[in-house]
């Protein structure tokens, strides 16, 4: 079993952190993982993305030609990565910012208004966790509780423990929306 | 005619911290005086067993040969950075960097300024003789306006090569340094003054006070094409007009 996901959006949408939390959760679940970010000026205001690979054997390439999933947080991300997703793969689309349909007919699409769902939870900054929750439900890659646990540990380690509750709610919101 | 020294007491001899090796400097070169002064102060402070000297590139490249202390030969211009590494790695050592004007004030500009700006607890001896001695008498950053060198055959033209850089004044603008002074060696009074200044620069380090810089106006009779005595006069009458002697800061 090897799964990979590209999480892409613009800087500020938290795609890098979402990937880290997913990788941490995969590791906590006993899997081998790699997390590979785009880095440098891209991260400072432009587009940002990261690739997470989860596997039950040592990960070879941390870059993937055909990811088994894509989380597209904005239109440029969908435009850039849609065609790369493996046949039968999963695409999570932020329809709040993407006004076109997914062209691929061979992918499982979860189109969600991520901005509105984040606002419902009470924080636009939690949009990445909404997306991650949706991805977890759509792919059944890991138990949601494992992701919650990884998220809580990572935020506490970064001195942001006060945001754990709202991010748990965000994960659940995304999870339940699929 | 020989007079016996039996009834006499030795009042001046070779400092114990100097090796027996003969200096490679030209006749009348002030590097020799300065080397002796430093050794004498290492003796007086009793620090030879914990001193590390940093030798530059230039005429003083052999500085490691003269002292009975540990020494490191640094690349051109980096002596202050090497001294930083030594002192940070082992703060118990007494570290001095011995640097010429090309080394300290040209190729090593960044290393020199930033070691001073960090207030490294080191002693820097900056030998300013306004010329590149070792490579054959080329223009130094401190060469005087109009000074003839092998790369300014018609004299240094500020329009082409700028002005002599008063590096110690630049260092003295910084907040961190403890002691910045300019000394000379052209007569016995200046030699005594310079000795006191260098003593203070080492003592500051011993007392953990921080960065001390002693600029020493020196002669280069060979490349100035002057007799050693004329060279001394040149420093006294001409060079000190551009590079005034005295303490620039003393926060010790």
């Amino acid at each position, binding site marked *: 079993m090897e799964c990979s996901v590209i999480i892409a959006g613009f800087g500020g949408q938290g795609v890098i952190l979402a990937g*880290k939390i997913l*990788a*941490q959760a995969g*590791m906590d679940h006993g899997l*081998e*993982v*790699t*997390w*590979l*970010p785009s*880095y*440098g*000026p891209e991260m400072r205001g432009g587009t940002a993305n990261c690739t997470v690979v989860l596997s039950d054997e*040592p*990960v*070879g*390439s*941390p*870059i*993937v*030609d*055909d990811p088994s999933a894509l989380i597209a947080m904005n239109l440029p991300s969908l435009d850039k990565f849609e065609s790369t997703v493996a046949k039968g793969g999963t695409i999570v689309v932020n329809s709040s910012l993407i006004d076109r349909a997914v062209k691929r007919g061979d992918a499982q699409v979860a189109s969600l208004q991520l901005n509105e769902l984040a606002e419902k939870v009470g924080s636009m900054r939690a949009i990445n966790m909404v997306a991650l929750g949706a991805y977890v439900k759509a792919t059944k890659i890991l138990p949601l509780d494992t992701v919650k646990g990884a998220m809580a540990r990572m935020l506490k380690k970064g001195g942001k423990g006060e945001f754990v509750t709202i991010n748990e709610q965000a994960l659940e919101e995304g999870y339940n929306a699929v | 005619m020989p007079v016996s020294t039996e009834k006499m007491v030795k009042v001046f001899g070779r400092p114990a911290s100097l090796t027996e090796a003969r200096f490679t400097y030209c006749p009348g070169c002030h590097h020799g005086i300065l080397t002796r002064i430093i050794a004498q102060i290492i003796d007086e402070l009793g620090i*030879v*067993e*914990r*001193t*590390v000297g*940093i*030798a530059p590139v230039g005429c003083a*490249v052999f500085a*490691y040969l003269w*002292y*009975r*202390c*540990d*020494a*490191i*030969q*640094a*690349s051109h211009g*980096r002596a202050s*950075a*090497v*001294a*930083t*590494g*030594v*002192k*940070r*790695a*082992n703060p*118990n*050592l007494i570290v001095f960097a011995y640097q010429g004007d090309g080394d300290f004030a040209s190729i090593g500009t*960044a*290393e020199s*300024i*930033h070691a001073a700006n*960090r207030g490294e607890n080191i002693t820097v001896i900056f030998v300013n003789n306004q010329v590149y001695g070792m490579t054959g008498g080329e223009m130094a950053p401190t060469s005087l306006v109009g000074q003839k060198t092998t790369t300014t055959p018609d004299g240094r033209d500020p329009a082409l090569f700028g002005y002599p850089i008063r590096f110690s004044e630049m260092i003295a603008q910084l907040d961190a340094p403890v002691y910045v002074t300019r000394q000379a060696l052209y007569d016995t009074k200046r030699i005594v003054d310079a000795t006191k200044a260098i003593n203070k620069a080492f003592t500051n380090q011993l007392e953990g006070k921080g960065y001390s810089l002693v600029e020493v106006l020196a002669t280069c009779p060979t490349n100035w094409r002057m007799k050693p005595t004329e060279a001394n006069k040149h420093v006294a009458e001409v060079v000190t007009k551009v590079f005034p002697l005295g303490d620039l800061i003393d926060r010790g």
Partner: protein
Amino acid sequence: MGERMLLRGNEVIAEAAIRAGCQCYFAYPITPQAELLEHMAKNMPRLGRTFIQAESEIAAISMVYGAASVGVRTMTSSSSPGISLKQEGISYLAGSNLPAVIVNIVRGGPGLGDIAPAQCDYFQATKGGGHGDYHMIVLAPSTVPEAGELTMLAFDLADQYRTPVMILADGMLGQMMEPVELPEPIDVASLPAKEWATTGAKGRDPNVILSFDLDPEVLKKMNLALQKRYRQIEAKEVRYEEAATEDADILIAAYGTVARIAKSVVRMASAEGIKLGLFRPITLWPFPYQPLKELADRVKTVLTVEMSAGQMWEDVRLAVAERANTPFYGEMGGVVPTPRRILSEVRKHAS
């Protein structure tokens, strides 16, 4: 071994250096190795050790030179353009027989290039980027955990052979995260004393650190001593990894990040019935000429894959020496060869 943690390559190299007893670290910021610098900035002072953000790469390597002279374990890190600036100091370290660790998280070049991962500094690292007849040991990790292990090893080899050692990784390895079990810290007090260090001439003759002698005959002797040590290193320190080479028809020769990507290709090729193996040099200098030569007798093709125009390829061809075909596939400018692209190259040579 401790807790399994998810860490970046840059952080792991930094933390491994700390655990290897690195006492002084000096560096200048540059992408993509900034996290290494930041980890050291945060952790070295807490441990009572030295961290200086130097005014330049040249100053940083010169500080390393000073600290190494005193006999402490010391390191600097940078990325390609910064490593170019450090060459003066690296040559001095080699010439003065000083142990130090230099990390190069390589990015695209030449010139300012870009900040994407590349392997275009192979020549500079393995053939002596500075002046004079010297080598340094060059270790090329392929995974984040290995980056930690090789960093620990780098300090030991540096001390053992009194030579600078380079960790040659790339931006991808520096930036990516993988689970790591960090090695236990070494006991610095148990390291052998460095009798040659400039620690103060108390009860002994002065020690002098230098790479200089104006007498050509003396300098020749100094060079011969260096060369003798290099022959010892070549005899004892060659490291490499083989994967699926037993019945391989084709071999990929690759190091670092590309080698791990190639491991995925080996699996993909196997599924297609192509007998593909991988030969991965871990020491780029000394290069594993002999083991590769022996493998070349058993395969038809050795395909070199690099993120360069073919720098390691030269060493591969020296080793293979006409025993097998030696095609090349390289990417430049920070483009990373994907598994599929490598596989299509493999297919060209499989029929």
